């Protein structure tokens, strides 16, 4: 799209570029480039987070008083675009994007003092305890129980689909503190350390072969009551606020960078005698179609940002953003597999692809891994069916 930058915006973009040139080491870029799952590998994620923190850019969306940057929507958009174009690792959102804003909105000054600095600096790594084996889309039916005993809650039950629980040192968690007539009542929002006695983590391998997901078990875990965020039994209010944050944000800059990668992959797959053949032609038209979809999403995201700045908030906007962003990403990963062809059906770790006298291309391996991992995109953070329910509810109010 034709995006007109003011002189200030152009200067900001150059400042971001200069920072990325200097701070993004080849190893970090490679880790970002190989991110075929939801998050970048834990060590690179943390290293990059800390580099951003040194520059003051690790939590740009937070209020300035808590370490945010106070950028305009256009600056956020430029920053996201430049990071994506430079293959920067994708910062895991559980701390900066999810529990951070919750602690800012609902936490006591003491809680903010205790947790926000670690999130900002990237010294703490959080995981999210929401879903349970019996409570997926119907989150309010959750059963994991916390009983107050003196100044501790005693936790029993289990959480599932807990991304990177095996790396996290802290967890935020929805627990049932009271049995109430409505399932949304009696839920509380608890934060605690992952090294408490009685917590165990079971890996759940993904269809891609990656280990991102886990099930977490709680066996009489004594959690300090000072970890309660907001009022007891009022966790649903907190959870809803968090979901708005989880589904917010801009997808288009990231999708545009992925689109360029597909264009490069297509050039490589169809060079020499294959250039211009019928299949090449078909795939080019599919890329052109994806271009239109990214442009549309970008225009919508920028319009939503501008409206929000004016105080006009479409309650359906987070759901629409999640639907479009995830389904477009899935479309791109599917197209990437088509571009890669049969070479995508090998199962070789990406870092081993070239490490042999008979070298293999890495990109087809990335394509398949992304495709498999990305089937989760329309399931996590509220399935896309639930999002369509929410959009329709707004339309049919």
């Amino acid at each position, binding site marked *: *799209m*034709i995006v007109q930058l003011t002189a200030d915006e152009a200067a900001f973009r150059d400042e971001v570029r200069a920072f990325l040139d200097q701070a993004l080491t080849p190893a970090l870029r490679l880790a970002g480039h190989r991110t075929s799952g939801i998050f970048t590998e834990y060590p690179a994620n943390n290293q990059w987070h800390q580099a951003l923190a040194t520059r003051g850019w690790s939590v740009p969306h937070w209020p300035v008083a808590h370490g945010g940057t106070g950028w305009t929507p256009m600056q956020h958009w430029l920053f996201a675009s430049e990071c994506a174009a430079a293959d920067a690792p994708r910062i895991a959102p559980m701390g900066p994007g999810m529990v951070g804003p919750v602690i800012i909105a609902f936490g006591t000054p003491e809680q903010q003092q205790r947790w926000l600095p670690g999130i900002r600096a990237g010294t703490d790594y959080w995981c999210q305890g929401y879903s349970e084996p019996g409570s997926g889309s119907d989150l309010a039916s959750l059963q994991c129980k916390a009983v107050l005993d003196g100044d501790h809650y005693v936790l029993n039950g289990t959480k599932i689909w807990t991304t990177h629980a095996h790396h996290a040192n802290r967890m935020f968690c929805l627990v049932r503190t009271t049995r109430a007539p409505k399932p949304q009542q009696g839920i509380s929002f608890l934060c605690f350390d992952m090294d408490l006695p009685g917590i165990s983590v079971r890996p759940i391998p993904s269809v891609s072969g990656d280990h991102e997901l886990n099930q977490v078990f709680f066996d009489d875990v004594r959690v300090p009551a000072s970890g309660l965020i907001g009022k007891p039994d009022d966790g649903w209010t907190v959870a809803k606020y968090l979901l708005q944050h989880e589904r917010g944000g801009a997808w288009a800059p990231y999708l545009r960078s992925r689109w360029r990668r597909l264009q490069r992959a297509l050039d490589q797959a169809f060079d020499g005698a294959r250039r211009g053949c019928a299949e090449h032609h078909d795939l080019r038209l599919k890329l052109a179609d994806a271009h239109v979809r990214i*442009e*549309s999403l970008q*225009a919508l995201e920028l*319009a939503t940002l501008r409206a929000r700045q*004016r105080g006009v908030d479409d309650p359906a906007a987070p759901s629409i953003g999640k639907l479009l962003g995830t389904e477009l990403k899935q479309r791109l990963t599917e197209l990437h597999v088509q571009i890669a062809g049969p070479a995508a059906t090998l199962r070789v770790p990406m870092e081993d692809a070239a490490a042999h006298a008979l070298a293999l291309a890495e990109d087809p391996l990335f394509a398949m891994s992304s495709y498999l991992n990305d089937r989760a995109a329309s399931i996590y953070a509220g399935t896309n069916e639930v999002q*369509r329910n929410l*959009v329709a509810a707004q339309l049919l109010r």
Partner: protein
Amino acid sequence: MTDLDDTEQALVESLRRWLADHVDTATQARADLPPAPPVWRALADDLGLLGAGLPEAAGGLGGGLRAQLLVLQTLGEALAAEPYRSAALVGGAALQAGASPLLQGLVQGDVLPAWAHTEPGARGLDDPLSTTLQPQGAGWRLHGRKSAVVAAAQATHVIVTATLQGQPVVLCVDAAAPGITRRDVRTLDGGGAQELQFDDTPLPADARLGGADLLQRLQDLAVLGLCAESLGVTQRLLDDTREHLRTRSQFGVPLASQQVLQHRLADMHIARLQAQALTAAVAAGVDAATADERALAVSSAKVAAGRACRVVGQGAVQLHGAMGVTEEAAVGRWFRRATQIEALCGSSAQHLRRIDALLNLDR
């Protein structure tokens, strides 16, 4: 179009009110073609909108492209966008480019310049022109055939595209010039058009308004105007469908309570939102764009608008049930226009090919 300021909001509201009182789409499709486009005179006299986007020096309001697209979107809600798109938007831009003294007449409603670009067999985008212009004395003579020229029967002038020694030219032809044969036809949306044959039609020296650059710009404007109109068409389709789901009951419950219908409605809404955001963003950027950037952006908007026309149009008919395929329910008429829009000014497939070519210019 979104983010309307107060002036724009007032413009839309007054036009919407006037249209509600004066436009009856239920009868216009079957009635004889009126001697003048029903909305044209009022747009000049009552609403003052023919010059909404034209410079104040010519008597216009100076609102630029955005104002014209807002008018078109609102006309689209009432199925009344033609000939505003072809005559005021494209014809107006042609007259403006040629610094024609007729521009003031257009603002006042006395000049109606029909846009005659399409030829028989044309596909809508990047078509070769077989209409030719040749020097004759101090002026020119024009030879060739134009097809489906909207509002040509009511036009005072015809903006004709042709080639002069192989190069494209844009011309302004007096509708009363000799050597023009006409055939009246109706269009799918109930409007009127003409087939035109020029047989050595003599033109004065100042008939030439511009060349290849102008032709490209006018075509892009025509597409963008169509996108804006489509937003009004799909808005009405969505509004009617929403109302139908709320009020119609089957199996003892409102249709609105059925999840499968809810999800289809959500997808219709989202398709339209994207087309709307992209059309507005493209319109805001075209003046500062190079010709290639403009073409890429405009084609993208057309593909998004075409998709919205199909998703919303087909969905609206389906969710209305059998009523949706009748002449009696409004949804059928708006669906016809939505279908027409996707086929005009280049199909989605053609625009995707243009996008592909523009994305690969340096490869």
